[in-house]
């Protein structure tokens, strides 16, 4: 192949990439794509269905007056529409996703393959139980793993996500108090200021009242304040505490906290969002907790899917186990797996049913596939590598950023914005990471640290990937310390620049509506 150097444009004619406008609106590999409603028509369809036969209707006149008018796309158009949109998303499969508290680990494709076996994906929740023995056995097997890993005697499988698991745990606490005749008097739930927002929201959903506890200088529960909150105990329902906590630290006094709460007549709810740091190394059951949800979509690798589906099985101590929700699976003496669906017999003390059917089976299949792949030995290594990776990041960045607390962390490294120059904020650092090809860390959470930056690498990142990330963040942190104002405009290289969230909230546009002057424009 020859090279025609003569025909190349001279250097002075080359414009910077950002300034090039295209007629199509596409930019190289990034294709322009409008809304479905701008490209489809109501008469287009991407499915071939037989025509109705014209049988006599038995709808009894309860018929739709106005058609939906929703546009359709042919199959090739639909494929391109969604693939083009997909290219505007960051994803774990593309790069490092250090979102603290979210445990964005690799999602094995074997899990996806197994979940699609018709024996799991194509069975109905109300089929005769004799025809779904494998499904019930799977739920029982997963329950055994969860109980063994947490050292807890019982588990409720039906909660649909982490926050739903919290609801499950707090409803069990409520039911236990009702059974003691103290349902109306014990309403106060202690929640650390550093807690996930779901904790106080959940407690209130269950009719409890929140009493916040401060963190101490070490980022843990302030024990003096806890003791002062427990001077009066007859209204105490319990405590909701995340461990390891949202500062990425193990609660040093956790057994003491459990003892104090139990002595006060309350129960200990542990938010298990950060279980990845201790799986296989510490059993929550040995710490004195009464209930804990487990996010299968964090620790056990089921995909986050852009915001769900999750799954939040909730383990219980002996004290709360009788109040767990229906349904649950038991194995009869003859080996038959049976669903207990009503609050009677063995489930007579159950607080009831939280949800239709039996939980997130699709997630159960993926989580068990993951557990079997890792085994007991591998899961212990998961926790250790996750914690090692986080400490490596903390060690590499502590000279240019400000660690929120002294000492080693667990699965996530937390920094404050103390190192930044005036006018440069956490969000500027986060958005600059986008230009470097990374998803930002969790920002402004937990609330107890100013301008918090929470970085959780998980165990599925290589050392080389962590080094590249730390090099990039070191450079950004230095610019932030020097007050580099160009950070305020980041990101520059993403599909869009910063979005106007105030405008979105002030006059919400929550669905597409046809332009009012469409007819004129068409002329």
């Amino acid at each position: 192949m020859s090279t025609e150097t003569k025909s190349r444009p001279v250097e002075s004619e080359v414009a910077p990439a950002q300034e090039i406008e295209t007629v199509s609106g596409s930019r190289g590999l990034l294709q322009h794509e409008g809304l479905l409603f701008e490209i489809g028509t109501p008469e287009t369809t991407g499915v071939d269905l037989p025509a109705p036969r014209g049988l006599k209707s038995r709808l009894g006149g309860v018929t739709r007056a106005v058609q939906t008018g929703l546009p359709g796309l042919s199959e090739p158009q639909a494929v391109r529409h969604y693939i083009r949109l997909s290219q505007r998303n960051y994803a774990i499969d593309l790069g490092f996703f250090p979102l603290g508290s979210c445990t964005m680990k690799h999602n094995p494709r074997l899990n996806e393959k197994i979940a699609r076996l018709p024996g799991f994906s194509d069975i109905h929740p109300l089929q005769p139980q004799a025809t779904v023995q494998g499904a019930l056995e799977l739920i029982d097997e997963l329950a055994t793993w969860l109980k063994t890993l947490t050292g807890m005697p019982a588990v409720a499988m039906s909660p649909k996500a982490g926050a739903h698991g919290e609801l499950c745990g707090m409803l069990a606490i409520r039911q236990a108090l009702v059974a003691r005749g103290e349902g109306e008097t014990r309403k106060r739930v202690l929640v650390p200021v550093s807690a996930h927002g779901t904790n106080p929201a959940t407690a209130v959903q269950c009719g409890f009242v929140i009493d916040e506890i401060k963190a101490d200088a070490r980022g843990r529960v302030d024990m003096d304040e806890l003791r002062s909150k427990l001077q009066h105990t007859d209204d105490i329902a319990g405590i909701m505490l995340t461990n390891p906590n949202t500062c990425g630290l193990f609660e040093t006094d956790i057994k003491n906290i459990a003892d104090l709460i139990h002595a006060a007549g309350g129960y200990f709810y542990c938010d298990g969002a950060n279980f990845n740091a201790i799986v296989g190394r510490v059993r929550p059951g040995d710490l004195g907790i009464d209930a804990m949800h487990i996010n299968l979509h964090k620790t056990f690798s089921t995909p986050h899917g852009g915001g769900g589906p999750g799954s939040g099985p909730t383990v219980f101590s002996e004290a709360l186990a009788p109040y767990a929700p229906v349904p649950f699976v038991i194995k009869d003496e003859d080996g038959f797996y049976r669903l207990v669906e009503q609050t009677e017999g063995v489930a007579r003390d159950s607080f009831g049913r939280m949800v239709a059917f039996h939980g997130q089976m699709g997630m159960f299949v993926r989580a068990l596939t993951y557990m079997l792949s890792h085994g007991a030995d591998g899961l212990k290594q998961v926790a250790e590598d996750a914690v090692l990776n986080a400490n490596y990041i903390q060690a590499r960045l502590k000279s240019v950023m400000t660690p929120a607390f002294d000492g080693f962390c667990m699965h996530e490294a937390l920094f404050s914005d103390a190192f930044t120059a005036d006018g440069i904020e956490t969000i500027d650092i986060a958005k600059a990471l986008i230009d470097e090809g990374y998803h930002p860390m969790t920002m402004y959470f937990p609330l107890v640290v100013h301008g918090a930056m929470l970085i959780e690498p998980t165990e599925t990142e290589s050392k080389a990937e962590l080094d590249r990330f730390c090099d990039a963040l070191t450079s950004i942190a230095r610019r932030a310390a020097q007050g580099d104002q160009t950070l305020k405009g980041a990101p520059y290289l993403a599909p869009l620049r910063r979005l106007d969230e105030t405008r979105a909230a002030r006059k919400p546009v929550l669905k597409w509506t046809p332009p009012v002057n469409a007819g004129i424009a068409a002329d």
Partner: protein
Amino acid sequence: MRYLPLNDADRRAMLATIGAASTDDFYVDVPPSAQLKTKIAGLPDHQGELAVERHMTKLAAKNRSASSGPFFVGAGAYKHHVPATVDMIIQRSEFLTTYTPYQPEIAQGTLQTLFEFQTQVAALTAMDVANASMYDGSTACAEAAVMAARVTKRTKIILSGGVHPHYAAATRLLCEAQGLTVVQLPVAIDGEGELAKAVDAETACVIGQSPNVFGTLTDLTGVAKSAHEKGALLVSVFTEVVSLGLVTPPGEMDADIAAGEGQSIGNGLNFGGPYVGLFAAREKLVRQMPGRLCGQTVDADGKRGFVLTLSTREQHIRRDKATSNICTNSGLCALAFTAHMTLLGGRGLKNLAELNHEAACELAHALGALKGVEILTPRFFNEFCFRTPVDAEAVLAMLDEAGVVGGVRASRLFPGGHMGDVIIAAATECTTTDDIAAYVAALKEII
């Protein structure tokens, strides 16, 4: 261990950088009595793909899949055909392995599909605004009830006798935990209209379902009128979203909130989950809605874009004052819904709904012709209930032996009642004339 990139040399180098002797140093805050130095006993060690796949395949083989023969089970989850394209789209890494779109500059793919989803759900339900999904229909129903109590500042929730009992149970649980009173009207195949008489000046909302758990269609317009006269809201519930292609949607019946199950479009049966809850409301109620909302805005260059909005309703901002504790919802199931709905289009959905209705009409006609069988549902879409001359549990067991999964016995959903001889059966576009013939032949033998 194929999911772990670090090797021992990496680990040693990293410990040296950190200044730790071993990973044990990181666990010093764990009380000694709770430290596990060896792996947890009683669980197997790691295994390769082949071994894991073998184990899981054995479990899967012990289940009878809906596609393996004549299948008529509904009652809240429905066997439909999902185009191959839908599963391809939701397996795209960029959708499957991303997070809730908190960073809109690099999440426009998810956000735009959510905006399209909200628009589709609003159009299907004929409501003003829809959110970005709930866990499922039952939790959407429960959230609708507590939202109605917030909006009206009243404490009484009235459920019809035809609301799916799982939905009723989930709603009762959440409402009673919040100190609300729940009144459940007597179980009735055709009793949604009774809500109009039950509503009073203390009522926050009445909750009716069409098609209801027995398949019965009801125009709730009169119920809405009675509710509004008393200052209460109508929550209109559905479990079969395909019905909305043909039957009167919540918005046309003056509902204030629509809550339902979206599984039938884009999502498989999956033994009950994950599914996708649909939630829509009148525009003036938007700031009391639970869950995520995606809204349109512009970026710094003036280009159109989408963001999560009105988050001052939500737990991560409002904490104990939030409208709901929901965080992770059903993002990927909502994408499956949207992709399937996009392939169908309005015309395709109507066609699909007609095929469903005709399959159910054909089934009802054939079963109703059998001596001793009585079709009990007066108006239906793709599901109805019928009385058999023998105990329903025994009938279904015998049908199963004949290779036909004949439906759900009403007594499984309403134990202790007087419905021991009632079967709820559904037919969809997947139901063939041969399936129906097999059902009729088997049932004829039994009764």
